[in-house]
């Protein structure tokens, strides 16, 4: 397909190759490792290849939103303090608490996550990550039912059908479609022409704009995902005897096509999002979906169906893996006497019941994400925030410790949304000699000992 003689004829007017660096973008969970940075002395001159979301991450470096000094809240206003006092204060707050909770951790490197778990072990605290209310739920169901997953290379090379179920990737992970749907793989040389896309959503999102003639758009009624999945579970075995009225607001013709695609395609990749996390009626759509995948994989004559959960934060998956290796659990870990114990609690129930006396928030913004009632509980107890930017939580926290931006100002390991580890690089020095998350947490851990 590629003609050799056209290759490698570069324009000479561009800058020297030595000025450019390939880095990994930590803007979202896709972790694009192909971003090109043109450096001019110590500054970043040009950023090539990032989407708007990734660009925002780089904007952060010099934005007025950066936190550059440790801050403490006194009489409802924030005061600058120096690092020694700040760390002492943090340690003092931790030592004074009996039931501390650590939360967040999905926007930091794996090294930092490991240190956070060590801190939680040390102080017999409760640790949980954002994935409890997101991606992690899929894994919880997977541990009960089993799951078939795939990674991006498989989708690029093998997938002929991609299903976006309740996820609007164009808005949340802009580059995902260009990587999986429009790319040309080894067994899918013609690329988009041979790959079909099915979108299931409650309204016509921006993702619908990439649909072509072979594709299928299914607009379902709100809260009816579970209906549709149950329907598919029933009918994917007895082919094409579909009731005339259709199901969940989708007409018979489309359902017939959907079932025929599900049964006759070689590699179906289902991508789901937050929409299926919520229980619907008495059942849970994610549970049903996993069961559907199991049934399909059993009854299909050819091919495979696999599932990928699309999360937002860049290292949400990382916490699951680090925590599993360290404690044997993937989320909601309660330590007692240095050992993880079985618990039914999650961060939500902890906050709801006010069963905590100190919160340590690392690299996330719960105030802007949690329902107001829970945010109120969170703000009623002392709070330490470890983050690099101002946010809703910044306006509430009692002690704020700034950190460097991983992937730009410090390096680290992160896990892509498909559970593949990717290295994040350091390209410039952080301002004010701010420490990385990993180093800062290590310092706190050392002071605790």
């Amino acid at each position, binding site marked *: 397909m590629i003609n050799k003689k056209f290759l490698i004829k570069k324009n000479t007017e561009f800058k020297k190759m030595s000025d450019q660096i390939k880095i990994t973008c930590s803007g979202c969970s896709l972790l694009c490792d192909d971003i090109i940075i043109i450096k001019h002395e110590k500054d970043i001159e040009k950023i090539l290849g990032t989407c708007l979301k990734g660009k925002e991450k780089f904007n952060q470096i010099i934005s007025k939103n950066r936190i550059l000094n440790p801050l403490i809240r006194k009489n409802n206003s924030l005061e600058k303090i120096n690092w020694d006092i700040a760390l002492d204060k943090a340690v003092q707050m931790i030592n004074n608490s009996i039931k501390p909770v650590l939360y967040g951790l999905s926007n930091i490197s794996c090294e930092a996550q490991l240190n956070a778990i060590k801190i939680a072990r040390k102080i017999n605290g409760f640790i949980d990550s954002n994935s409890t209310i997101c991606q992690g739920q899929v894994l919880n169901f997977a*541990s009960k039912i089993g799951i078939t997953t795939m*990674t991006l290379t498989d989708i690029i*090379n*093998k997938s002929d059908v991609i299903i976006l179920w309740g996820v609007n990737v164009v808005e949340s992970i802009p580059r995902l479609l260009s*990587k999986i749907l429009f790319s040309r*793989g080894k067994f899918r040389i013609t690329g988009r022409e041979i790959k079909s896309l099915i979108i299931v959503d409650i309204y016509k999102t921006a993702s619908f704009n990439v649909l072509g003639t072979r594709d299928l758009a299914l607009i379902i009624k709100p809260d009816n995902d579970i209906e549709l999945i149950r329907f598919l579970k029933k009918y994917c075995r007895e082919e094409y005897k579909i009731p005339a009225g259709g199901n969940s607001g989708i007409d018979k013709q489309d359902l017939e096509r959907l079932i025929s695609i599900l049964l006759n395609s070689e590699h179906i990749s289902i991508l789901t999002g937050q929409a299926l996390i919520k229980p619907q009626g008495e059942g849970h759509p994610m549970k049903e979906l996993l069961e559907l995948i199991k049934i399909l994989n059993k009854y299909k004559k050819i*091919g495979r169906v696999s599932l990928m959960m699309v999360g937002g934060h860049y290292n949400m998956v990382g916490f699951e893996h680090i925590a599993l*290796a*360290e404690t044997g659990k993937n989320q909601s870990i309660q330590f007692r006497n240095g050992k993880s114990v079985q618990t039914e609690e999650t961060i939500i129930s902890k906050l709801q019941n006010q069963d905590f006396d100190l919160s340590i928030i690392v690299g996330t913004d719960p105030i802007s994400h949690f329902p107001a009632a829970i945010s109120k509980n969170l703000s009623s107890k002392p709070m330490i925030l470890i983050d690099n930017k101002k946010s809703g939580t910044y306006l509430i926290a009692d002690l704020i410790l700034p950190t460097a931006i991983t992937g730009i100002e410090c390096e680290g390991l992160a896990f892509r949304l498909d559970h593949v580890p990717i290295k994040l690089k350091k390209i410039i020095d952080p301002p004010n000699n701010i420490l990385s998350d990993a180093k800062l947490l290590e310092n706190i851990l050392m002071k605790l000992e």
Partner: protein
Amino acid sequence: MSNKSDRIIIKNGLIFDPLLKIKGEKKDILIEKGIIVEKFSSNNNIKEINAENKTVIPAAIDIHTHIASQQINWVRLLGKENKEFQKNWEGLTLRYIARNYISNGYTFITEANVYPSLSKQTIFNFINLPVLDKAMLLNLGNFWPLEFEFEKGKIDEISYFLSDLLSKCKGFGIKAYNPFEGEIWNLNTLRENIKEKGKLYNFTAIDVYKHLIYSIEKLDLPHSIHCHIEGYEHIEAKDNLNILLEELAKIKIDRIDSSRFKREQICHLAHANSLNMDGDNTDLIKFLNNNKNVDLDLAFIGFDEINPIITSDRRFITNYKDSSGKFNKIIINSNESEGDSYTGFRKFSKSNYNDCILWSNSIDLALNIKNKWQVQFSLNFPHYSHVNKIPKIASWLLSKEARKIFMEDMDNKYLKISSIFNNDNVLDFNDYIIITRASPAKSLGLTKYKGNLDVGTDADINILDIDITKIDSNRDFKSIEKAFENIEYVIKNGNIVKKGDKIFLGYEGKIFWAEGKIYSQEDKLRVVSKKSEFYQKYYSYFYNMLENNVNKDFLKKII
């Protein structure tokens, strides 16, 4: 901790060191800076361990385990709410693994199934796995980038690229797992045997094995190719095994260095007890007795309460039938087109015919292969057995009595055909040390560092509270079992990591890796740049992303 002294002397122990051909001699062992020495450089700060009437042996080495990969994490996830798993394996955390391995006398383990794209996770876990030295084998069974070279048999190109891949991923050796079986991913059928040509590629699985063997010999990697035979634990494996053995018999490789410290095999068969599921191992034994260039590890079945399934063999999962229906949860994970991995749970049972065959095969092979240096002890941990079953397994090998007692309540159908029951052969203690310590070290090419007590090797030592020379191991297996259950001292690089009941985990091990001998850097660069183009075309990341930047303190390069 007071365990850290610069110099340790182990006095009057009974030394067993098969590689140096020492069988129960009384000797002192001197350790300085983590290494066994002939003479101390100074006499200050010497810690003395009295080993009078105690047995001193090298620390054990595991040649085939699964302890630090994504698959293990899937097991942990599946077992999160499984009471039996939590009770018996305590969540299988890294510290739990390290603790159990150390208390059974191990200081070196080989993670046997790592996909190159996931090697970063393994390295991350390795760094957090205390005390133990470790190495990983890269699974290149379905490695597309080398497809063209496998077809044309371009040994040079393969070896250059393997070398670069190993040095990027910090791998130690190569594992081949169902070569190019994944090419028919879209069909739910399986190929007949490994002699069958691919539907999309013009070569067979045998070709892949063969070319990999030649490339590895060219690079002179410490360990030979680590072969997984397709369809293990099923009768189909026998065909595939015979095809491979036939091919291996034809391969003759001359080595310049042929000292007894150097590995002799060109091919290592992984968990060989699962290959002859009809219970008839005569062909395999005959082949090994005639051919020095193949060795195998035997994974012993410990009949635990519950065992994780960790495999990448699609044939195994297709054939696997869970009769109880209790363990039908399986996580199927496809890794960057490098192969699939399957994880689940199962329970081995003495009343299951197949499980008994698996159990007896390993004992049969261990007893009947003449040259014990071709046999390595492994558990395929945690797939077949927990490490804490080792004392029990040792007693089955060392004593006929122990075997008989254990076999009493086994499946009747199995007992009818069993030859083990009436087999009078036993291993002597020296043989046992060979298959658990010296032979794995030799097969892995680590005799310079591990598996013996020669001057200059790492001071990795076990001290057993038993005088082996005064014991009839066949009769008095209970006392041997007891000695292995609580090894008195485990010393790792001169650090006492286990003393009595206490285990100390505050010490870091090293990651062993090898790159092989490269004859032309230029050619290597050319091949690598060509191959990185392949990654650009088809992979979701660049080839350079495989690079693992590990702190030099954690690394040890072998070749």
